[in-house]
């Protein structure tokens, strides 16, 4: 482009261009999406070679939006984009972990250390009472999950945060949309290898009584357990120092017309618990071909994802009962029978095998024996074949057809040997086998027309989409085997079906299917490069609503932006480089989590629940739910305003967004009386919930010298949430609240949270402790504010004693560069919330007389008396969860080119994840997942979080 004129040229695929010019003093402006533009005076040269620098901070970077891409400067909505260079480095489990702390308003929690566990994601508060908080994840436009492609193969992740950007995805978009873009093939031949090796430790462990503490308490009669004469640290017995390693090899190349990319990723993670692991092999091959002068382009991609992991429970990964067993098992019990005090052994029940077993009465087996005598393998295979055909007859018109076929297969096997506790007390051996298959097919056709008329820049998109999924599952179990040699591989040898009185061995098969049909369109309009407008609409049918009066839903959106810095009056303000004001409104839906919700269905009861009629057992025919044809879409309406800015030659840039979102026709399993209803809940659209918040991201280049650089990014978000309404004309709750959560046995039936109109979600509900009596009984505050002893407290005296949803999130990322060294430090924190410490609630009460408990159990409560009350859910176990984590530290070194001959680039790094946590919370990790309505629930059985150390190398050839 010749500066100041409309004369310009476009390069061909090899990057060559030709341009006629008039004046040697003309200045050529070279620009390309994702690169800094560069200006060169033509002078006398006839051949100009230009190499553009990638834009670092540039607002002109490409952002992936629904069904297309846009320059960041042309965006009208709240979209956060994170490039590969900014990802969290090290041993990450899934794609979401790459973004931890990088996007304001996006909370990513890894609440457990289980290597098979996916991250849980929360964007802009809790917007639904049903369904889930999970956002829609699209990989190159095709629905998938966070593990579909390997994190190393991802080029960019874009998060559609507000309603106006997400609305084009209609029913699935309320929790936000995460667009994952994989690395693209091109003709530049290169080979890249990334590898790492690492290990993990527990971030923190519970302080339990050790064998000598326990023994002393047995002696003085405080506890009634047996001294088996051993000295076992059960947690140590079931854990190990794990080794994790991963390798990623990427090859790309070809010609400008036909090129390819092959990415092979292998990863093997051992969990910190024995027999907890995860192995994954992800291979992706992408081939591009263009023909007819680039008018027709084909992209074909094949993605194979294999995952294997060991299981120690039927249908699970790591059996979490093993962890809780390790906490509560008597520490004087040796691991093996041979180590038990012979006198005690003589008095113990006889169990087969070498393992010392605590009593069957507590039904908790020796935790190491459970690991060693259980064996399971879970195998998952996802194969995705997708093709994209783009036809561009003229520059401004493009047709695109996207086809995808995705098949997921899962096979699982699990068995227990004859030395397993279950075998020694009842049946001989156990085996289980299961398989699952899902098929997802997608067809999407879009047409896009873009043209610039004078000062009008217009782009129109229209499309049709059809998505179909089928789910099938089958499993069986058997027991009473003649041998335990065959694991689950010879299940027919079991005789579970020929027990003396004739029982059945369980078998099960299941199938469901559904589809999603949609029409969508969008218009982008830019006037004079200053005023921007986007309007979109999606009209969609979801088969989950079949049977209701409203199968089709419509989801509109509109957003506007004003690039203030382009105005003439701003030209003089040279320190402001960009200033853009955005405003948007959009409607999205919330997809219900299960199919057939509105269909009034009948089912046959299972074989264990039949009716005895005239000497025969007859399967009953019963309704599956209460009918509700009024069932309709749950919709979220959102208003968002935002400001993008960069100042001081782009040294400081940032984004501020404020939103107000309201979910109407909230779906909830409304409690209804039986009779007249058949079931005691009906899924109905009853409520309204609102969320408002502010998100801020500020990016600064503090130093940018030759040998030293420091980039810093600060993210902050806050969210306030409120349930506005919980009834409709049809469903009127007597009380404007309901209870959720359960304090677990022996407190089952006692709720942990209350959801009430006018209050936020996540209110922790229980008795408020004021003091303790000299006898160790709780003193509570009753409903009138008076102290009352625990024996006289009633259910009416419960109060709000906390809230599990953080009010503030803060993230601070820093990147330092010194000569060839680089250092990045990611810090995150959440503030203004409480957690229920279930571990303390259950294992910090002297009422437990035979199991191991926390050391703090026999501490005086409030320095006054040792607790001597029954287990009660109260404010003593609800703690502030505020924390600040130095989450990820990466130190890297870049070797000079050809440091090793033939190696173009080489980098080594060392990284620590979950490095340091500053908190007053007594539990293991204040960052807990928790379900939709019971946030702040710190599960006592969870696989504790770990701190991981990784050493890695990147090589390019």
């Amino acid at each position, binding site marked *: 482009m010749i500066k100041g004129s409309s004369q310009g040229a476009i390069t061909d695929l090899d990057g060559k261009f030709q341009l006629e010019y008039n004046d040697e003093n003309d200045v050529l402006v070279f620009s390309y999406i994702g690169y800094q533009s560069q200006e060169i005076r033509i002078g006398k040269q006839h051949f100009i070679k230009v190499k553009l620098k990638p834009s670092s901070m540039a607002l002109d970077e490409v952002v992936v939006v629904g069904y297309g891409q846009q320059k960041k400067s042309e965006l009208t909505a709240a979209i956060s984009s994170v490039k590969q260079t900014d990802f969290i480095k090290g041993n990450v489990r899934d794609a979401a972990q790459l973004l931890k702390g990088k996007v304001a308003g996006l909370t990513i929690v890894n609440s457990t250390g289980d290597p098979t566990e996916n991250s849980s994601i929360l964007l802009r508060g809790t917007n639904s009472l049903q369904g889930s908080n999970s956002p829609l994840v699209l990989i190159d436009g095709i629905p998938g999950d966070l593990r579909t492609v390997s994190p190393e193969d991802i080029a960019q992740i874009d998060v559609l945060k507000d309603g106006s950007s997400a609305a084009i995805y209609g029913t699935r978009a309320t929790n936000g949309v995460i667009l994952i873009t994989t690395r693209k093939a091109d003709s530049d031949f290169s080979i890249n290898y990334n590898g790492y090796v690492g290990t993990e430790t527990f971030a923190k462990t519970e302080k339990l009584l050790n064998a000598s503490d326990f023994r002393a308490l047995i002696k*003085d*009669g405080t506890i*009634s357990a*047996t001294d088996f004469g051993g000295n076992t640290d059960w947690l140590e017995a079931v854990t190990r120092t794990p080794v994790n390693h991963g390798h990623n090899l990427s090859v790309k190349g070809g010609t400008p017309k036909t090129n390819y990319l092959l990415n092979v990723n292998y990863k093997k993670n051992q969990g910190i618990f024995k027999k907890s692991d995860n192995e994954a092999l992800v291979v992706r091959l992408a081939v591009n071909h263009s023909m007819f002068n680039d*008018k027709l382009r084909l992209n074909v991609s094949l993605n194979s994802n294999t995952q294997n992991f060991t299981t120690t429970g039927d249908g699970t990964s790591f059996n979490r009962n093993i962890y809780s067993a390790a906490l509560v098992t008597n520490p004087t019990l040796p691991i093996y029978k041979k180590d038990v005090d012979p006198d005690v052994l003589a*008095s*113990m029940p006889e169990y087969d095998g070498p393992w010392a077993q605590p*009593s*069957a*009465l*507590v039904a908790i087996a020796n935790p190491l024996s459970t690991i060693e005598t259980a064996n399971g393998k879970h195998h998952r295979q996802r194969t995705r074949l997708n093709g994209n055909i783009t036809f561009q*007859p003229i520059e401004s018109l493009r047709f695109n*057809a996207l086809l995808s076929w995705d098949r997921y297969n899962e096979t699982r096997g699990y068995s227990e040997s004859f030395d397993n506790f279950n075998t020694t007390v*009842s*049946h001989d051996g156990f085996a289980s086998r299961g398989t699952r298959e899902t098929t997802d*097919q997608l067809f999407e056709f879009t047409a896009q027309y873009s043209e610039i008329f004078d000062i009008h820049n217009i782009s129109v998109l229209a499309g049709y989409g059809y998505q*179909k999924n089928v789910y099938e599952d089958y499993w069986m179990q058997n027991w009473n085997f003649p041998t335990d040699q065959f694991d689950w591989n010879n299940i027919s040898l079991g005789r579970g079906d020929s*027990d003396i*009185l004739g*029982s059945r061995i369980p078998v099960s098969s*299941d199938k469901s*299917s*559904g*589809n999603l*049909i949609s029409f969508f369109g969008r218009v982008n309009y830019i006037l004079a490069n200053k005023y921007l407008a986007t309007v979109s609409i999606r009209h969609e*049918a*979801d*088969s989950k609503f079949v*049977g209701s009066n409203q199968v089709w839903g419509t989801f509109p959106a509109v957003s506007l932006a004003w690039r203030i810095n382009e105005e003439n009056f701003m030209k003089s303000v040279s320190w402001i480089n960009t200033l853009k004001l955005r405003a948007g409104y959009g409607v999205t839906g919330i997809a219900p989590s299960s199919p057939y919700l509105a269909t009034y*269905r*009948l*089912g*046959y009861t299972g*074989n264990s629940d*039949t*009716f*005895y*009629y005239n000497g025969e*057992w007859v399967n*009953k*025919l019963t*309704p599956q739910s209460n009918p509700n044809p009024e069932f309709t879409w749950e919709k979220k309406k959102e208003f968002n305003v935002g400001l993008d800015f960069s100042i001081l030659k782009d040294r400081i840039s940032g984004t501020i967004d404020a939103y107000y979102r309201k979910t109407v026709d909230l779906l909830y399993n409304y*409690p209804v*009386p039986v009779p*007249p209803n*058949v079931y*005691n809940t009906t899924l109905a659209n009853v409520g309204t919930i609102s969320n408002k918040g502010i998100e801020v991201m500020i990016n600064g280049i503090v130093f940018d010298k030759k040998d030293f650089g420091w980039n810093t990014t600060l993210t902050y978000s806050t969210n306030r949430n409120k349930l506005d309404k919980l009834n409709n004309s049809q*469903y009127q*709750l*007597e*009380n404007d609240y*309901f*209870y959720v959560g359960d304090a677990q046995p*022996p407190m089952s*039936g006692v709720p942990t949270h209350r959801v009430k109109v006018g209050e936020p979600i996540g209110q922790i509900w229980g008795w408020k402790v004021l003091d303790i009596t000299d006898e160790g009984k709780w003193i509570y505050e009753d409903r009138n504010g008076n102290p009352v002893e625990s024996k006289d407290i*009633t*259910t009416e005296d419960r109060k709000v004693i906390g809230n599990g949803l953080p009010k503030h999130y803060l993230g601070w990322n820093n990147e330092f560069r010194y000569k060839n060294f680089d250092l990045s430090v990611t810090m995150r924190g959440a503030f203004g919330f409480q957690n229920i410490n279930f571990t303390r609630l259950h294992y910090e009460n002297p009422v437990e*007389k*035979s199991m191991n408990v926390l050391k703090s159990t026999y501490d005086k409560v409030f320095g006054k008396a040792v607790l001597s009350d029954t*287990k009660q859910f109260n404010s003593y176990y609800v703690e502030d969860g505020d924390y600040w984590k130095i989450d990820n530290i990466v130190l890297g070194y870049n070797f000079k080119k050809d440091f090793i001959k033939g190696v173009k680039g080489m980098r080594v790094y060392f990284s620590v994840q979950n490095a340091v946590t500053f908190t007053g919370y007594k539990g293991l990790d204040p960052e807990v997942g928790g379900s939709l309505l019971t946030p702040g629930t710190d599960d006592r059985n969870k696989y504790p979080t770990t701190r991981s150390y990784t050493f890695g190398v990147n090589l390019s050839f």
Partner: protein
Amino acid sequence: MKTKYKMIYPALCLFLCLSFNSCLEPDDSVYTTIVADKYDYSEQDMVRLLGNAYTPWRSVVVGMINETQTISSDETLVPVHPWGWNGTTINMHLHTWTSETGEAINRWGELYTGINNANQVIYQIESGMVPVSEGKENYLAELKALRASYYYMLCDYYGNVPYLTQFNVPDGFLPEQITRKALNDSIIKEVTEALPLLPENVDKSTYGRFTQWGAYALLAKMYLNAEVYTGTPQWEKCIEACDKIISSGKFDLADSQKEIFSADNEDCVEAIFAVPFDQSYASGLNIFNYVLNGQFSQVYSTTTFGGWGGSAAIPQFIDTFDEDDSRLKDNYLQGQQTYPDGSNVMCELGYSLGKPMDIVNVVPGLDWAEEPHGLHLAKYEYVAGMNPGAMSNDVFVFRYTDVLMMKAECLLRTGHADDVAKIVTQIRERAFKSNPAKAEVTGDELMEGSCYDYGLRESSYVVDNGGESPVVLIPNPRITHEGGADIQYGRFLDELGWEFNQEGRRRQDMIRFGVWTTKSWLSHEATKDANKELYPIPRTELEKNGKLKQNPGY
């Protein structure tokens, strides 16, 4: 060229679209269930629907046997054990239950499921949704009697409850609560009206279903408790209903009490209304799990490991038995327990660890009991190879002995003690085969008070575990002596306890004989609070239906 390509696109699009079968139709396929609107009921479905109304009785009887009628009474308790049970079961013994105590409130939902399912099937028949060519009126009568049986239990547990006999109600309809007396009258009216249309035959086709005799037994129960439910006794009417059953000649006393509770008791001559259970096809009877310890899984080679070791018999109750009463031996496990190979079962926890499990008639108190403490409940036969959570013994909600005893009680209360003596003697005979002389009772004896030695009866449990000083588990045992001689017809209450222990009815009998709130046993101190005669309405139900008012005292 261009136009040619442009043609390809719509064609390609169309082709792809069609290949997905339909591009605009939402998928409505179902695979494991049936879409109700598209289903036409056939005559055969009547049985499949009828089952919905009957099977809720299963959880109702399990609840009444394990929890709601027993562990709050003077026959059984669930003490704190070394392996747990330190939660709501404590409240049951102390009568400090609340509207959240599962053992007290869980029956509500189970009973209303039965009522609502009955209403639904009645609606399905009346509206013609299910074609019934023959015996439509009989089905309706049967369902109404069945529905009344659920209301009978609601009347007994909660008293003032919503009464609804319609299924097809407007959206958002909330049923109205009625008084216990009004409920009592409605039940009697419904059963009386249904009676003539019920079957008279007692055979395989009516087993587990309501016959005329089941309906009479239900009426007898209502009349027997009428004074409690309404304030007005109905002894004569109860006798009348019992006589209908007795004179029918369809039932008889079983030769031994044991056979009534065997794992294969389907052909029992006493069964008037049976709730069938089966290890494979009708699970839920989990008495084994609820009352026995894990070691018994090996004793009985159960299909899966089970045994939560909850309930224990209250020693004072056991002490009322005559030593020659075979029911004591047949209904409880006591003494040294052995495995099938003859070796001793050993204790595994607490201070009893390593000692042979020699079950004794001692429970230190609610706060502590170990494996050998308190006789173990064993009325429903345990057999080798059983499933501890799904026993196959059928449960008789109404049985012939009960009909005879109801009649006897009414005769006693109306001054015919000598006639009563004959009936009671007849029943005792099968329990005193070893000493027939003891079976004999006189009218005068039956007019006596109870031999139950009521009063708090805790004992300190002192264990020397080698520490500096012995461990005392109940440091301040409470002992009082209230006795039972002052209980009117107390001897008859004892007779009921001996015959019907563990059958899920002790609470009802104790209330009728006026001891529920007036006496103390083991760690339970008399509440002197008449409100405890009803359980509270569950909190969750009050929240769902604003028309409900909680029972007094809660």
